[in-house]
């Protein structure tokens, strides 16, 4: 059953990688906002190239 050692090492490395990713995400504030991201994805304002540019220039 040598292979189980291999699988455990591989699995632990993967899990460890995810753990580091998790810690990183917490540290860098990825998890701080647990509401607005869910709303933000709903807004994909379509860019009408000409119109938008015009508005910006006015401003």
């Amino acid at each position, binding site marked *: *059953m*040598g*292979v*189980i*050692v*291999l*699988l455990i*090492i*591989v*699995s632990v*490395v*993967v*899990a460890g*990688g*995810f753990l*580091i*990713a*998790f810690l*990183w*995400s917490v540290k860098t504030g*990825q*998890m701080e*906002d*647990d*509401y607005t*991201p*869910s*709303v*933000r*994805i*709903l807004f*994909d304002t379509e*860019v009408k*190239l000409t119109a*938008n540019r015009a508005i*910006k220039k006015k401003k």
Partner: protein
Amino acid sequence: MQVESFQYDNKTVRNFAIATIIWGVVGMTVGLWVALQLVYPTILNLQPYFNFGRIRPLHTNAVIFAFVGNAMFMGVYYSLQRLLKARMFSDVLSKIHFWGWQLIIVAAAITLPLGLSTAKEYAELEWPIDIAITLIWVVFGFNMFATIIKRRERHLYVAVWFYIATFVTVAVLHLVNSFELPVTLFKSYSWYAGVQDALVQWWYGHNAVAFFLTTPFLGLMYYFLPKAANRPVFSYKLSIIHFWALIFLYIWAGPHHLLYTALPNWAQSLGIVFSFMLIFPSWGGMINGLLTLRGAWDKVREDVILKFMVVAVTAYGMSTFEGPMLSLKNINAVAHFSDWIIAHVHIGGLGWNGMLTFGIIYWLLPRIYKTELYSKKLANIHFWLATLGILFYAIPMYWAGWQQVSMWKQFTPSGQLKYQFLETVTYMAPFYAMRAIGGILYLTGAIIGMVNFFKTMSKGTLEANEAAEAPALEKTYKKHDGEHWHRWIERKPTPFLLLSLVVILIGGLVELVPTFLVKSNIPTISSVKPYTPLELQGRDIYTREGCYTCHSQMIRPFRSETERYGEYSKAGEFVYDHPFQWGSKRTGPDLAREGVGNLKKSNTWHYNHLEEPGAISTGSVMPSYSFLIDDNIDTASTPLKINAMRTLGVPYEANYANKANADLMLQAKLISDDLQKEGIKVAPNKEIIALIAYLQRLGTDITKK
């Protein structure tokens, strides 16, 4: 803040969408064909290329890697760009990814009917294709991570996390499970043997379900379901929690495919515990998906896209409830090897993956083509055909599975098995026919969908490059001119870490696997000997023909099995099996002890049975293998195979490779002479002789003293 203008790449999305639709219909058609082969075995098995054993893997590989795979890429390429407010890193890499993946699929569609197969479920493709998969997967991952790095949105939405987990874990699974020793250009032996191979295979197999069919689709659900409903996901917090829980638990669940087998008990228990815990994060996702529609159920009544998605998420909930239940030992003892499992996987495949895929295409195609869907009515017809198709598929199969197991396990009052195996096969015929009707309904729906999609595409024009604007990501550091490119990656710890993880794993595996695996393959039962050259060639025919798709080689320690098949299987009996052939489904009887006890048959019986199974066992659904009578054993490969086995630790004596073919002919002559006595004239160098030799060998070792 500087607003940057850029463009989303819709062309790659469109290409993956077309590939999804076409390969979906192809994969489902092959599935229907395979299903009907069990109803009309003599008409629909076209030997050798289109026998059940060769095209069942074609069906599973096509629907998993071609249909679901392309759908995943379609959804990821669409949503990732918008979630990160950035175009994909490189159009060239996107193109290589797309065409590379299609080439791999074409290679699979050619090699599997040719019988080029590693005989490991859902990993049947031979080593050159395995390498191609690795390369293309890395292209995909690089393209994705590079896009993440140049994103304009600091927060990574939960879907992106799911995509990252998918990439990393599938890479690791594929590398570990595909560790094989090439013998010729299209033949390799798994590096692992027997129990070890089984454990690796199902560690891979279950995680393929987890990280190829589930995590990417959860990511897609978290993007496309809120989009289609135009409301935020029920609980973003829950989505984050269940993501981390899911990926930490899933990787340990594999052994539940091996309960009551020769796998050590503690490994089985480990698998059960994690499998059971999985119900919580799984249902977290399901509940989150459904509750996103709270207060919007009126929309579901109107909107066919939401209907598709609701059925998908419901199917996900059902199959992830069933999964943990099936992982319990007492339930697994009943359901394993039966048609119940076929129903279970199709709830997941047709329901979760299929319905979500179609929902996404209906939502996304009109958007990138700047038009309306060609026909809402046809989409509704598609929806109902698909939903009914799932029910018509699953219900007969659940019923069949239950019936089948009851018959397998039933004893008469005097303690005899009540049913011959063949009786349970013929009993299944009407269920298999009903299941095919479900498949026809689902496929018809998919074809109607295909027409609708192509009509929609011809109605509009693809906006290949969609304009978008977003403020640049606020830099937390100041870049100075002329710095080394590496500084760029050093500032991004996560992608760097994940990429290096893959690199480290490849290196680590190459070092580790050979050294300690070969040693641990040393036999524990002294009477278990390596296969003779003829048996080895016969075994390679067995794997080539995909016999494992219907026959298990694993007798579990139940009275109903030991009475029918003989002494239960021991771990030590499989130490020379590269790859293991325990199977996962008993459409035919177990063959672990085909060569001993009351199962032992004469060479003549095997010859006649392989030539025309229906003539020997009336009502058999096994295809004819009469071509084995004409085809010659590939004796040129014998020395190569013996040497490869020696490398893998099988104790053939040094230089045996040179003598192997002489031994092979000697043994073949004995069988051909024996057949001659019964009036069957067949030359000893024919493939059928090798296969008979292998079948006669099965399970005999432990009876030798």
